[in-house]
């Protein structure tokens, strides 16, 4: 049966780039760095495209953010093979925390009918892991988080979640919200034709009002969390000297490596 899949994506600063925070409102200065489609979201897009190829259907990309970079993130996903995009663009969203964005995305998602809503389980900038479960909560849908190997059949979705000892197989009814884990797959490169086709694909822009977003629940003021302070990470290296006074340096070294889970 054809599937209707939404994938929520975010633009993030290039993983390799040096990031800056704005001194004023303590949000990330997104203009100072090259931004990319969140790599974990790329894996969610790939998972969605694989589901589409196996079942037929349609993949819709949903992204909230300012004009240029959000549209670039959507275009990238469209050039990989997604079918259409929805861009939630409203200045009132600036500074929203994870729950604020999850609420706003949920409002957008309510406007469509989706069998599956996929997200990257986390973004490489904020790493809160909160957005997929919060979207599920707002939509009152089941949430399978940190998953890969997503498959569907007869109104059900199954997925694997890795554990320390193996993996769990999770099953839920659809619609459902899934957080796709880092490393779930190797996202395809967009093809030349995909890139050229991307700009012809439908891209709908919604304002907060269009999505019936309650302004008091988003933006810096609507956020339940607040960044009080920030500072650069200390680059001082930890130095542990293993002495061999008692002839047991090898044991200490092995213990250390074990504690750090290197061995």
């Amino acid at each position, binding site marked *: 049966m054809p599937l209707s899949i939404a994938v929520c994506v975010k633009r993030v600063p290039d993983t390799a780039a040096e990031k800056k925070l704005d001194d004023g409102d303590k949000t990330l200065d997104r203009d100072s760095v090259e931004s990319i489609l969140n790599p974990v979201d790329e894996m969610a897009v790939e998972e969605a495209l694989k589901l589409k190829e196996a079942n037929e259907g349609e993949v819709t990309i949903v992204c909230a953010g300012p004009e240029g970079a959000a549209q670039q993130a959507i*275009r*990238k996903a469209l050039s990989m093979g997604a079918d259409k995009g929805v861009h939630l663009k409203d200045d009132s969203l600036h500074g929203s925390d994870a729950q604020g964005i999850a609420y706003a995305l949920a409002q957008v998602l309510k406007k469509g009918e989706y069998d599956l809503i996929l997200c990257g389980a986390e973004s490489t900038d904020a790493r809160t892991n909160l957005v997929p479960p919060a979207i599920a909560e707002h939509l009152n849908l089941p949430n399978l988080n940190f998953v890969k190997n997503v498959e569907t059949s007869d109104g059900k979705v199954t997925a694997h979640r890795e554990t320390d000892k193996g993996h769990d197989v999770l099953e839920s009814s659809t619609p459902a919200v899934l957080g796709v884990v880092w490393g779930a797959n190797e996202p395809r490169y967009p*093809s*030349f*034709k995909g890139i050229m086709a991307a700009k012809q694909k439908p891209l709908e822009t919604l304002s907060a009002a269009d999505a019936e977003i309650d302004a008091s629940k988003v933006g810096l003021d609507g956020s339940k969390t607040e960044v009080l302070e920030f500072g650069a990470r200390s680059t001082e290296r930890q130095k542990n000297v293993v002495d061999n006074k008692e002839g047991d340096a090898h044991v200490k070294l092995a213990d250390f490596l074990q504690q750090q889970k290197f061995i």
Partner: protein
Amino acid sequence: MASPERLMHLLSEDERALRKMVRELVDGELRKLSTEYEERAEDPKQSYQKLAELGLAGIPFDPEYGGGGERYLTYLMVIEELARGWLALAIGLGVHTLACDGLQRFGDSSLKERYLADMVSGRRFGAYALSEPASGSDASSLSTKATRSNGSYLVSGQKQFCTRGGEADLLLLMARTSGEGPRGISAFIVEQGTEGFTPTKVENKMGWRSSPTWELVFEECPVPEENRIGNEGEGFKVALSALDAGRLGIAACSIGLAQAALEASLRFASEREQFGSRIIDFQGIQFMLADMATQVEAGRALYRHAASLKDAGVDYSTEASMAKLFCSDVAMKVTTDAVQIHGGYGYIEEYPVERYMREAKALQIVEGTNQIQRMVIGRRLAPR
């Protein structure tokens, strides 16, 4: 911000996305693979398939046959980016493009229907067979013969230095159909595996080892008359016209290679410390890097200018020669300086620059030696 990044502002949105994709492909997998394939001196068939899957085998060709219909400039941008990570692969794609170019410009519609659609989609890759053991720079003296026989030609002779001649599916072959000189030459499409066509020997080269260079032997190899491109006697025109476009490809390859050498040098000079400071802080090194960066930028501007002329539909042959000459000389100079900046480390295989220097040398030789380029440019300048 490095200059190549500023170039982004001159690109269309599609070109930016395309460049980003190729960069990810190169940095993500191709560069690493290139080391392995160079070491094994093996043709990377799967990587060509990957290029085909991504739609990169036919960027500048007619959409009617499934090509991308993009500017030649856009194609060259892709070539430069590929060469930045894997020169031999960029060369292979360039040679394929050379064969497609000859077919698109001079082939009749039935020949294009039979071959061009397969080529621009990358289902079949092409190679270009002009040089012979005794005719290199003096290409119009070639002696491989194509003799008419019952609606076909029988081709006999030997070709030399044919890039991917044993791997390509189709050859753009130049052979003599009548008397001496350029007017006796015709161009043909020859399928790999045709009876009487044997790739006989792979050369053992100083660089570009993952791009096999073949000696090809033809012994009464039958080629159907409809596989002739253009009229009898027009083959040299086909060959030269494809070469003009090919020279721009070599120019873009040169700049990609030089860019890689520059980036490696900047990385090394920023990390390497001597006399208590990073060597990039010594003016002697800075001046070398400044010259390298300036030459790369000048070369890029020149080949992009020549390509813009081609895209505008005006004669660009002189500028193509200038771009090939200048950019390949830049590649040689910049890669040599890159080895110098790396010192002893530049001379060993642990760092990539010794390979870059070996690879640069061939760029001054192929698609017309740089002496031939000067001759072409000079002749155009001298009043007749």
